């Protein structure tokens, strides 16, 4: 069940590579955006297009990152579920180990009784000496198994607290992952808000200068050139 769910997890490596590719694509355009805008007249359509292009690349980057994080979280949560299952199974195994230890003790007693009976019968029939030897070998095997059962039961008992700690650590990791996902989504929203504000500023620069706007008549000449002023300030 767990292995099946893990197997259905999308290829994380491929998603990570896609996210990295989208990041590089966006970063190269985002870094040079202001420099490019400074060389374009405020109402030149290329100005708005440049911002829209970087915004699209940003959206693509964030979408790829979101896909990657969702898949990674899904895989991580499946691991936690598997760890919980393991803990339950080991707890059951601890109970089982103690029952097996009791069973082995019971078998040991039964063989001892058989052996006693056979020793008495050997006095009447010497031919029973051979089975007596075989019974002793069986008793030795059971003693060996009893000792191993006890050792295994001890190990299982010592393992349980470690597995409980492990499950707690898995759960802490999942909680951290959930917080990170939430923080990422908040950041994603902020990126969108920023590009909206940047596009809005470009429109304001155009509306107050009308420099480079296509259409009838000459462009109005403003008292000052704020677009260039803000562009220079950024450089």
């Amino acid at each position: 069940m767990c292995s099946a769910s893990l197997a259905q997890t999308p290829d994380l490596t491929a998603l990570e590579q896609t996210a990295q590719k989208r990041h590089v694509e966006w970063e190269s355009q985002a870094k040079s955006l202001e420099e490019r805008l400074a060389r374009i007249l405020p109402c030149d359509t290329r100005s708005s297009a440049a911002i829209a292009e970087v915004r699209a690349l940003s959206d693509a980057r964030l979408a790829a990152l979101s896909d990657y994080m969702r898949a990674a979280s899904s895989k991580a949560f499946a691991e936690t579920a598997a760890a919980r299952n393991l803990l339950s199974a080991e707890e059951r195994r601890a109970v089982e180990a103690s029952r097996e230890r009791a069973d082995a003790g019971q078998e040991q007693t039964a063989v001892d009784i058989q052996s006693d009976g056979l020793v008495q019968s050997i006095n009447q029939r010497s031919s029973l000496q051979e089975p007596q030897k075989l019974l002793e070998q069986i008793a030795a095997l059971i003693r060996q198994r009893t000792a191993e059962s006890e050792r295994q039961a001890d190990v299982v008992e010592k393992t349980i607290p470690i597995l409980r700690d492990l499950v707690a650590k898995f759960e802490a990791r999942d909680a951290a992952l959930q917080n990170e996902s939430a923080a990422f989504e908040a950041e994603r929203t902020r990126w969108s808000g920023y590009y909206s504000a940047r596009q809005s500023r470009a429109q304001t620069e155009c509306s107050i200068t009308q420099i480079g706007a296509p259409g009838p008549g000459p462009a109005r000449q403003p008292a000052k050139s704020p677009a260039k002023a803000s562009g220079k300030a950024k450089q």
Partner: protein
Amino acid sequence: MRCWLFAGIWICSAAGLMGQTSREAYRQDYDAWREVHGNLERDAGSGGATLIPQVDRAAARVAAFGTNRAAYAKAAAQTAAQQRQILQAGTTRLSPDLAPPALAALVTGELQTVTKTITRFAEDRDRGIQQLRQSLERERDALAALNDAIQARQKAVTTTTAAGTALEQVRIRAAEMIGSETSALSQNSVQLEKETAAWAAYYEGLAKAIQLANAPPPPRVEVTTVAPRNDNGPGIPRARYVGAWTYPVSNGVFHGAQPEFVDLVVHDTNGHADGALFARFKLSGTATDPLVRFDFQGDFAAAPLQRFPLMTSEGTAGTIELIPGPAFNLLEVNFVADPRQGKINVGNFILVKK
């Protein structure tokens, strides 16, 4: 011959083992074995050949118990190994390269530029410049909010990384502790199989010792050219197998699939047995067909436990064992056929003579 018989019981039990078993099932087998075994060792001192059927039954029971328990241990070890695989692989961790610190630097730089420009225009009363300044202030606010969000995410990333590191440390510790135990667990079934084989050898030795003690003195002249086919072993008349047998309407004794009815007919022709069994079982597990029908034949062996090859009505091969019951009119039947989709291929029950 007895050696083959005991080995046969063991192999047959192993081959006939159902895919699934449980602790309860093998503990029932254990109880059944101990009950059948009784006080064999004590009785062996004075008992005669009449003890042999009891030895055979005990051998069959311990074989069933041993193989069931070994199979259970093996399945448990396999399940444990599968479940513990989670500890062997590293846990999932997010790549730190997807949102590098340079991202925050880009935003911070932009925020500083916009803030400076706003300051530059602070005293300008021009209406257009004021509009631009307001627009820049909105952009600055958006950048500041973005900057905060990036810092919050980076903090979350740090927490996740620390949680992942702590998790990995515990996982490695647990893997080291449990790893060696997984192989030890898989050895349990091997140990149990050794014990089962040892029990088979023991019962064989016990039966031999009893027979040896009860054997008549050897004849002075032995002229046997052809082994008699109908030598049925010490003290077990053919009538214990031959005839028409049925499963009792109430209080039937069975192990595994529960019969609703069973009809068995066994014929004897000069030491050669042939027979037919027709039965209907209560459905359980993966079986979809309640009916079992097969024929069998073979020579009666010089042993209490008779084992014959069988062929089902669908052409599936298998074996049937006939074991005289504790009373004259009781016969234990144990059959195993090759597995076939939806069919019941294993049965063990006691029949009464019609």
